[in-house]
């Protein structure tokens, strides 16, 4: 098989030495098995060739962007072919007038926005890992980010796809196609429905004015009630993020972002639009925050200060690494009015299991990211973190929420999918998968539960 892949792609595009393969076992969350081979295609044709070889030999294929995923979506099974899109990182077409761009899947999220900034455009979905994560991976997980509150998640920004299917054939989709919205169905497919070889994306105009405010609170409940009140007042900021005292301390210790270390929680709020609207927006949000007991209010006065505040937020998960040997990041969404209840439940679940937690999350979307600290050398703590994580999932579901807001299901949560969906709910999802992945070679053992919970699934 390796020889066939080498013949098709060239020796420099096929890795099979053990030391090369070892790094492809991981993503940002999980450790998989050692793949049989890693290929680095440069073109759509290369991907087709890989898929045909995989089919011929009956070997699973796992698509991989930057490996920043947080649900074990890109981890391979033993002997699998990992398709790394690291070399397919070109912007293929830019249509400024129509604000759209066609890119290869390996383009780094932030690089795209940086590239089109000279035209006063940007690509709106901005996961915290945007400095390294790729568009292909973003499409696979329907990635979100802080600014999805106003702009929507990846699925709202993908106009069309070129996809290599399980047979190694290419097909294309567009959201303006009549009939079935294959584009929408494929986004979030986690590599189980095909491999995206290029994508048309929607670009967004840079707003005329951007304001960022940092608001401190003496307790978590006041902060989360402020979030609900802002939205209930009909104000939808572009981002509405919350960090608790643990995260504030961790970020300040590492990044010196300017967060108040005496606060129990801060809200990082961004609004964007026309300058005339911003004053009113600031007045309204400040009044709501004050009414909910805000301790302090700070408006960033420069782009540099805005960047510093955001860098702290987007680096929070890394910063917490200075406080604990290991951490587990959970990803659940609840209805926004249930935020105070959900946060209390998180605290209780973690404390009951003898652990500590930091909360940094997309409060405006109700998308929680508890970072549970533990030491993986300690078997008790490993068991405790699993238990606390499960309790948080069940709490989110009980509150009318769900088990993943933006990270995906992957291998991490596949066994808990049945907590959200019945076998009847899963049936059409499996039909969809079987249309695009009848062979089961595309990223097997992901998303869907194994075993008795659903006898049909692989």
């Amino acid at each position, binding site marked *: 098989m390796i020889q066939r892949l080498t013949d098709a792609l060239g020796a420099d595009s096929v890795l099979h030495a053990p030391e090369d393969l070892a790094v492809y076992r991981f993503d940002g969350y999980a450790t998989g098995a050692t793949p049989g081979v890693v290929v680095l295609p440069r073109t759509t044709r290369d991907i087709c060739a890989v898929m045909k070889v995989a089919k011929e030999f009956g070997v699973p294929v796992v698509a991989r962007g930057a490996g920043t995923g947080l649900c074990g979506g890109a981890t391979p099974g033993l002997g699998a072919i990992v398709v790394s899109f690291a070399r397919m990182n070109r912007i293929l077409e830019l249509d400024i007038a129509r604000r759209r761009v066609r890119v290869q899947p390996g383009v780094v999220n932030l690089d795209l926005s940086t590239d089109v900034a000279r035209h006063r455009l940007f690509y709106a979905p901005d996961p915290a890992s945007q400095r390294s994560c790729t568009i292909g991976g973003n499409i696979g997980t329907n990635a979100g980010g802080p600014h999805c509150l106003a702009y929507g998640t990846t699925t709202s920004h993908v106009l069309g796809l070129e996809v290599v299917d399980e047979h190694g054939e290419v097909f294309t989709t567009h959201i303006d*196609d009549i009939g079935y919205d294959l584009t929408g169905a494929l986004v979030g497919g986690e590599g189980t429905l095909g491999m995206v070889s290029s994508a048309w994306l929607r670009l967004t105009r840079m707003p005329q004015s951007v304001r960022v405010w940092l608001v401190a609170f003496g307790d978590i409940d006041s902060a989360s009630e402020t979030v609900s009140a802002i939205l209930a007042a009909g104000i939808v900021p572009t981002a509405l993020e919350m960090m608790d005292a643990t995260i504030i301390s961790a970020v300040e210790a590492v990044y010196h972002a300017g967060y108040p270390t005496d606060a129990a929680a801060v809200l990082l709020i961004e609004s964007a639009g026309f300058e005339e609207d911003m004053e009113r927006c600031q007045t309204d949000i400040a009044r709501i925050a004050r009414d909910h007991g805000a301790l302090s209010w700070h408006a960033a006065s420069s782009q540099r200060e805005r960047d510093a505040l955001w860098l702290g937020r987007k680096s929070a998960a890394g910063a917490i690494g200075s406080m604990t040997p290991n951490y587990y990041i959970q990803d659940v*969404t609840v209805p*926004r009015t249930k935020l105070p209840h959900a946060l209390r439940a998180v605290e209780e679940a973690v404390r009951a299991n003898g652990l500590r937690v930091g909360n940094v999350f997309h409060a405006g979307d109700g998308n929680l990211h508890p970072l549970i600290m533990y030491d993986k050398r300690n078997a008790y703590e490993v068991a405790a973190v699993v238990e606390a994580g499960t309790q948080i999932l069940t709490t989110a579901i009980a509150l009318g929420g769900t088990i993943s807001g933006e990270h995906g299901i992957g291998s991490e949560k596949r066994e808990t999918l049945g907590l959200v969906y019945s076998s009847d709910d899963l049936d*059409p999802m499996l039909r*969809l998968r079987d249309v695009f992945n009848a062979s089961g070679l595309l990223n097997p053992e992901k998303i869907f539960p194994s075993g008795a919970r659903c006898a049909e699934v692989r």
Partner: protein
Amino acid sequence: MPDRKRSRVAPTTITMLQEAVISARDHSYALCIRGAGTLDGMGGRVTADLDIHMTHLKGIAAFEPGDLTIGTFAGTTLAELTAVLREHRLMAVLDAPHPQQATIGGTLAGGWLGPRRHRFGRPRDAVIGTTVVMADGRIASSGGMVVKNVTGYDLSKLYIGSFGTLGILARVNFKVQPIPARIRAISARLPEHTRERVIERMQGLSGQISAALLIDGFHREIDGEDGSDGRLVVLLETSEILLEQATRDTRGALGQAGVPEATIVDLGPMDHLQRIIDAGVATIGERSITYRVLGDADDHERRSSQLSADLSRTGLRMERIVDACNGDLFVRLSDRDSRSFAGKLADCDEIVHQHFPRAIVVACTSPIRDQLTIWGEHPAAIEKMHLLKSAFDPDHRLNPGRFLEATTNG
């Protein structure tokens, strides 16, 4: 269950809908899934044994204004949804024809796209969860009542635009958004040779305006009287502070495009917009046909002028609506009488598709409608769509004839 003669049921609950589908399955009946029929002009004729009328499966299933989400049963009308949301100064932007009758399920299944989507998003982007009854009678939900959700595949996307051929939408959950403080329409007559410049200027303003529609014809439907050809309606939805600035900017842009005068319409601006949307599917007896094309407005403007020239020999009247912000084009062709029209229709259908291969028919009651290329050119992934249909509805019992079976002319 009725005998093989075509009959109808009108379920009021999802369970009743499920029972009807299971019974139909057991009798091998084909089903025609119907909303209010406001988009009946789209798609092929359904050949079925049983009509399922969805208009009685209605109401609000869940609504928490503070969450900015709402769950509705599929037979709820757009007007009912709007009324419930408006009480809390919220909105779901669907912008479909005849909202007093149109159902949420029918509007979504028909894949309708309105003129404000460039600013507020497509209906697909507002849908956060669905419950469908599958062809085999299973009740299957996906998504939920939260605004960010990547738990499993996003099946809701598949049902939107599927014309009820993959599953029957029974409940739809939306994320909603605040209604802007001020709404205003600006209308103007367009002097000759200004259209392309107007489109360009309106596209430049698309960050500020909610809709910009250039209209030729459709006088009876929109104005209620004869008037000039070549007019423009712009919709502004802004904060209190920005309204006058946006008005000045719009007028300024029109002036630069050669349009000297523009009239402010503060009385019922949304009604004005709705009449234009309704016009997009309005027929003139059996003597008209309306096509819709998605794409780029400036390109459509050029090609529709060429189309007009090519059609001049047929004697048909051509009316059109161009959506400058989204690029949609509606073209209505009509004749003096239905017999004469029917005689020309096949030729004119061919001419239209020479200029616009992907033009779809959205309104036509002519008896020869079924002979036309009603779905335009195939989408590139039509084979995958056929596979999906077979997977979701292996016996082809959901709305047979409406979509895939009617795409053979492309």
